[in-house]
């Protein structure tokens, strides 16, 4: 422990005594990290935003449509609950027309009963005052119904009156059902007839297997009256973006790392050449080759920490100031670790060269 502490102190003192080379090394690593953050970092951040948008748009959604006499019921939800890789599922009943209860001659909007074990994804409260008799309407539906205050009552075609419990923020995967009014039902027998089954997989990669598993547990009476829609095109687009941008980013990072590595090695090699007498003296006084290598590598690692910290900090601040998206802490940390490993690896050859300086050659007075 004391040896490590002494080594770090000596490496720090050594770095401080070679200010020009130390500052150059720090600037180079800071520049490298900044360059990565401003190029690959921004690409990664943009990629994350695009992928996030695609995911929201329904990359992971599986939609099953069943005709009225197909035999799809809410009981399918119990079976789907046992499938791995399912994030959420719900079934919608067939639509029934409804009007504003105080203006039954007004525009009609479709109303559906929604059956699910979890309504959080639809942002519907878990508990409502009148379960099964309270509906939530989208902004479009509220506008068409003439309910600007997000409250009122709906008269269903069946004669039933339903209270409007609030505004429904329609998620992207349900946007196709607009204008949308849902009456959430959390307690159901399983025998309720359904027309639409929505299943969201945990990740785009799981869409295909989850879709296959879902079809196997539909238990419908007439499979020919079932149609399945999987957002395959979006999934493919997502995969394409991920791989294209990923390979571009990796290539850029590798090029920058290689350039930085060569420059660090060049600077350290020059430093070793300039200070060969120093290493010769150290060897003569009893420093082992291992000590010399450890000293130079520690010195480089300390400079790398300073350079990477400065580069990451300044570039993050600059990206924030410019209003650009940030690539995330894991990306920044990864770039930092890569830069440090590159610098230390690049220092290895000059360090070994320094450790092999012959004390006699360096100390002899001509």
């Amino acid at each position, binding site marked *: 422990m004391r040896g490590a502490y002494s080594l770090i102190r000596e490496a720090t003192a050594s770095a401080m005594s070679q200010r020009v080379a130390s500052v150059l090394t720090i600037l180079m690593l800071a520049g490298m990290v900044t360059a990565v953050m401003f190029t690959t970092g921004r690409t990664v951040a943009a990629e994350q935003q695009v992928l996030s948008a695609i995911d929201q748009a329904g990359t992971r959604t599986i939609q099953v449509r069943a005709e009225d006499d197909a035999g799809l019921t809410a009981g399918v939800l119990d079976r789907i609950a046992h499938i791995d890789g399912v994030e959420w599922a719900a079934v919608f009943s067939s639509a029934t027309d409804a009007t504003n209860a105080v203006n039954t001659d007004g525009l009609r909007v479709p109303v559906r009963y929604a059956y699910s074990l979890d309504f959080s994804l639809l942002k519907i409260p878990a508990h409502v005052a009148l379960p099964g008799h309270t509906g939530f309407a989208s902004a479009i539906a509220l506008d068409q119904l003439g309910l600007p205050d997000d409250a009122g009552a709906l008269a269903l075609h069946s004669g039933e009156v339903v209270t409007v419990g609030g505004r429904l923020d329609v998620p992207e995967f349900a946007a196709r059902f607009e204008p949308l009014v849902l009456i959430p039902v959390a307690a159901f027998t399983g025998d309720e007839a359904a027309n639409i089954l929505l299943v969201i997989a945990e990740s785009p990669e799981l869409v295909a297997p989850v879709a296959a598993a879902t079809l196997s547990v539909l238990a419908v009476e007439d499979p020919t009256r079932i149609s399945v829609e999987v957002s395959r095109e979006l999934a493919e687009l997502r995969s394409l973006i991920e791989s294209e941008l990923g390979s571009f980013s990796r290539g850029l990072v590798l090029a920058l790392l290689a350039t930085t590595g060569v420059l660090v090695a060049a600077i350290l090699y020059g430093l070793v050449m300039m200070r060969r007498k120093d290493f010769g003296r150290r060897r003569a006084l*009893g420093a*082992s080759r291992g000590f010399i290598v450890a000293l130079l590598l520690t010195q480089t690692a300390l400079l790398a920490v300073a350079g990477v910290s400065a580069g990451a900090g300044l570039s993050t601040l600059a990206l924030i100031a410019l209003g650009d998206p940030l690539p995330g802490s894991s990306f920044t940390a990864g770039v930092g670790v890569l830069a440090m490993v590159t610098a230390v690896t690049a220092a290895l050859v000059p360090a070994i060269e320094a450790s092999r300086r012959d004390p006699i050659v360096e100390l002899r007075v001509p």
Partner: protein
Amino acid sequence: MTTLLEAREISFAYAEQAPLLDTWSARFDAGSVTALTGSSGRGKSTLLYILGLMLGVDSGEVFLDGEATSLLRDAAKAALRATRFGFVFQDAALDHTRTVLDNVTEAALYRGEDRRALESTARGLLERFAVDLAVDRKPGQVSGGQAQRIALCRALLFQPDILLADEPTGNLDPATSDLVVTALRDHARTGAAVIVVTHSPAVANACDVELRL
């Protein structure tokens, strides 16, 4: 007397040059000061490096405490240099980027010892050789004679068993030279073997043994 270091029939030549040493032998006993004398270019400094395990021989053997050293690995030789030997190089060979005090305590790094714990001893040595005022200066800010005395302080810090000094009085006035010679003799009295390369007849006369090359 106990022989600490022995050169037995050693021969050495730099590449493509005439031999500097040809089956040369000598013993260096504990408590003695040996002067290596001779005209320039006869291999005195080279012999010092060979005895200090920095340079291998073409033939023959160097024994330390009766043990052959030629087959020792580089790390073992470095460890011996750090723990058993003290060196005063011809041009002092100080680190010009560090303070005088740091220079004196440098070898502690290679011995795995705490430099700070040795600072008091180092200051005492610097005071003894009248260079204590320069303790926080860099070697570039002191004279050649002061640099040589600082190098001697560095060599004496750990009271080495074997002290090798290459013209330690070369840059010194007669009074300071006497101070250094006295210090070398005092160190030998602690049981160390002291080997001094010198062109000075006065220094050679003050030594117990003179070996001419």
